């Protein structure tokens, strides 16, 4: 599995993601700068976390309109696997790859802590080494992770099993609708999530709960 990690100005989790991918899959990912007009030949693209363009206008709004995103969008329409983590989730949502929006945390606080995450769907390319209903620890670090969408979209996400990750009971750090922490698109090739699984994969992180997520990618 060949992968690429995209870096925009203001992104700060790209190294964590590059290291996590290499440590778990054994394959060195390609680092791609946002000004590239097209992607290298890869099976998976990860848009990592950070504060692209200083969160100006809206989180992820400017990065979502960059040249590399146009290519990611076109290739995602043809089945390229895409994962957006934290700011990456905001970016791919702003780009229209996933429905809804990430709003300011309901209590206005930036949250930086560990949460409990429930695997709601283990039939995705990023969760197939997990079991359905499994609860794992995962760090979050964001000020705008309050997932919201219109009622019709919510009905579809829930009805079609497209809520992949949910904050476990009592663990919702941001007021997200239905405790939604991560979703997948209709085609099943684009996943966005607020928590940072790349920071819970080796003993130095305290726990290795999220390692199986990355191991799921090997088969993908």
């Amino acid at each position: 599995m060949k992968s690429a990690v995209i870096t925009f100005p203001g992104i700060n989790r790209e190294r964590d993601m590059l290291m996590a991918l290499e440590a778990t899959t054994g394959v060195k990912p390609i680092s791609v700068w946002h000004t590239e007009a097209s992607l290298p030949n890869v099976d998976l693209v990860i848009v990592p976390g950070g504060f692209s363009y200083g969160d100006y206008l809206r989180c992820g709004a400017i990065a979502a309109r960059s040249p590399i995103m146009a290519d990611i969008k076109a290739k995602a329409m043809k089945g390229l696997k895409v994962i957006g983590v934290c700011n990456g989730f905001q970016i791919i949502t702003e780009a229209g790859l996933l429905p809804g929006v990430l709003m300011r945390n309901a209590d206005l606080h930036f949250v930086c802590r560990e949460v409990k995450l429930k695997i709601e769907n283990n039939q995705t390319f990023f969760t197939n080494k997990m079991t359905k209903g499994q609860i794992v620890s995962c760090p979050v670090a964001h000020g705008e992770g309050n997932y919201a969408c219109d009622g019709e979209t919510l009905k579809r996400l829930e009805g079609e099993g497209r809520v992949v990750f949910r904050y476990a009971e009592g663990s919702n750090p941001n007021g997200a609708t239905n405790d939604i922490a991560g979703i997948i698109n209709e085609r099943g090739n684009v996943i966005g999530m607020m928590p940072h699984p790349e920071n819970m994969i080796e003993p130095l992180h305290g726990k290795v709960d999220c390692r199986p997520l990355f191991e799921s990618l090997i088969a993908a």
Partner: protein
Amino acid sequence: MKAKIKVTLKNGVLDPQGKAIEGALGSLGFGGVNGVRQGKYFEIELAETDNVKAEATLKSMCEKLIANTVIENYEIELA
């Protein structure tokens, strides 16, 4: 020409920043504040001189970037 664009949260969309401002106004002693909604305001200088064309361009700008129409409304005013 100059355009003014107002972006506001749609009705029913939670506005925690507006709530915080409302609370702060209360603690400053301003009574009778029944609600605060925070929005954004943009001034855009355009080379275009035709109002109709300018308005169409501005609408496209709002749809593509300036507003997130999932949660926001926008109003365009040409000066």
